[in-house]
């Protein structure tokens, strides 16, 4: 509570009210400083050190970064991130927008349907991953069911195909998150001034033009926040990959986060792992900082 509402210095109560928020917040701030920013600095240091199984403090310059970019697994991981990121964000945005527009047509049972679409978001990625792993497994999932029903020519074995497996991760991730994007867009749609739409309708605008020229441009802030959330989820995606394909077949679905974990903790090349974590951090920073900057600048105006 802002202390300016009261008259500080006059009463003890005012003093406490001035002091209490800082007291309550200080552990959080201290924890964030140490465990977020402190460890970011520590990881940065490790990425320039020759750390192997345990952290070491002997600096080796850019050696870990040079090694990192020579590794096949890393180039597979970054290519996968690119494929996954573009498709995941793109499909989620389109699907989310479409669902939001349809839900916004003042339909019956909207609350129920909205909940249905939003529910996958409440699941952990591990659960999503395991469920889709079974669904997509040709031996027990979709393909097996279709065969049992007599459609013996039906084939869907992407999860076993090293060129297609990355797209199964897109499928599971889109299923999980498109409901969230829908909710974001729906909130944006509800914020649009109905008067404006009526005016456009009176002027004879078609529904398509209405959405293209008035509604969708006004959803820009909703789209931006959805983009930022999805982008960092894409870069951090770890548990879904582990549960769904565990990086396989072969190493065809390796992602930066799984790469980081395996180099840091199982391959005892902590320096390379830290370097890959730095690259992931920088990628996220490149997305978040311009966003925050535009947000903060926007607030000032």
């Amino acid at each position, binding site marked *: 509570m802002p202390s300016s509402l009261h008259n500080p210095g006059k009463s003890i109560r005012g003093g406490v009210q001035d002091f209490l928020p800082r007291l309550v917040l200080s552990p959080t701030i201290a924890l964030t400083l140490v465990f977020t920013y402190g460890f970011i600095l520590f990881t940065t240091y490790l990425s320039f050190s020759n750390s192997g199984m345990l952290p070491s403090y002997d600096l080796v310059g850019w050696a870990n970064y040079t090694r990192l970019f020579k590794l096949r697994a890393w180039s597979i991981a970054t290519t996968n991130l690119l494929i996954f990121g573009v498709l995941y964000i793109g499909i989620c945005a389109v699907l989310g927008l479409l669902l939001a527009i349809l839900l916004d047509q003042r339909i019956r049972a909207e609350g129920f349907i909205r909940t249905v679409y939003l529910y996958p978001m409440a699941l952990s990625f591990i659960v999503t991953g395991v469920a889709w792993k079974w669904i997509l497994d040709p031996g027990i999932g979709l393909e097996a069911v279709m065969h049992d029903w007599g459609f013996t020519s039906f084939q869907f074995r992407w999860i076993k195909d*090293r060129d297609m497996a990355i797209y199964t991760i897109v499928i599971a991730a889109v299923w999980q998150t498109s409901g969230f994007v829908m909710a974001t867009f729906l909130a944006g749609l509800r914020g649009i001034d109905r008067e404006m739409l009526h005016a456009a309708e009176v002027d004879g605008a078609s529904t398509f033009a209405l959405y293209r020229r008035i509604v969708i441009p006004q959803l820009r802030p909703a789209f931006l926040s959805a983009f930022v959330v999805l982008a960092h989820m894409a870069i951090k995606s770890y548990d879904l990959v582990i549960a769904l394909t565990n990086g396989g*077949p072969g190493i065809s679905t390796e992602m930066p986060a799984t790469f980081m974990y*395996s180099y840091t903790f*199982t391959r005892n090349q902590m320096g390379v792992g830290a370097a890959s974590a730095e690259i992931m951090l920088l990628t996220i920073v490149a997305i978040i900082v311009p966003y925050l900057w535009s947000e903060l600048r926007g607030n000032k105006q």
Partner: protein
Amino acid sequence: MVHSRKALYLASVAFAASASLASAEGVEVLHWWTSGGEAAALNVLKEDLAGQGIGWEDMPVAGGGGEAASTTLKARVASGNPPDAAQLLGMALQEWAAEGSLGNLNAVAEANDWDSVVPASLKALATYEGNWVGVPVNIHRPNWLWINAEVFEANDLTPPTTWDEFNTVAAQLQDLGITPLAHGGQPWQDATIFDDVVLGMGGADFYRDAIHNLDPEALGSDTMVAVFDQMRTIRGFVDENFSGRDWNLATAMLMDGEAGMQLMGDWAKGEITRAGLTPGKDILCVPAPSTTGSYLFISDYFAAFNVSEDEKASQEALAASILAPGFQEAFNLVKGSIPARTDVSVGEFDACGQRAAADLKEAQENNTLVGSLAHGTAQTSAVQRAIFDVVTEHFNSDMSSEDAVEELQIAVESASY
């Protein structure tokens, strides 16, 4: 890996709990033996120690290959509070010793004459710069070929002893509509087959040159090209859905007769006996093709971490108990492995265990006892995983053998620095 996060969480809870108990009497032991049989085997040790008045502070971190346990161990050591003993595979023991985190057990080793009862190859991994830093618990053999006896008898097939015979038999099984080889497409399982092929096609000396010494000439040799050719042939003998399958499900395929053979270590016996079948009778065990006379091994060790003087006594008692003949027999009977010392009677063991013990002796005499790459007994984890990458990528793609050999050399070079 799926469980690693949960395990990590549990481990941190266990850590918090154990930290408050740190002053209590007893040995704290970090291990990943959490399945029914393994836990029962450990009980033997607990009771043994209880008899000597030493308490047992259990610190189990679930997860078959011990990946989660290894992460927990690093956290404990980095925070300056290592357990008294931790279960490790051979090369990890060496890596920890190189970090200077391990104490030594020379006094116990001398008192119990470990030098003369522990096979030299095991001793090489349990000692660092001449000091005993850990104690071996068991010997597993990964180069077994398991065969469904009923399928082979019904179709009048003979268990193959060479890779050529294997290819012929597998082709016959395929013609009969039986999956020749039950296999799970996980990097360590692919590497288990790779181990067998390298040892089978090149022999123990070649295996040592290529895998243990990373000799560029051996890694780039024609033999290695032939190894990858054979891997490609084997790829044709697994079913379509092999990718990602767990090894025990592959063993189930073998027991159901859906598949004819499986290349897997002797821990498969646990699955076989649990299904009410007899290893050596219903499911035959023969050395992996062309590896008769050679013995790949994996040993679990308990590493002795640096501990304070007052904890040293209980740590030494633990080490002595682990290698005592009585415990070796009782534990390994339950675990499915064979004793880590050569003077223990194996009369009680099943046919496969007895065969393993006899083969071990022979391999020791012929100097053909070699540590397994797939199971952390040949290389540091950096090099091991780099080789896994190539093997598993080759197995899952149409990469040519020549390209695989080249990739192998690059991977090994960039991982060993």
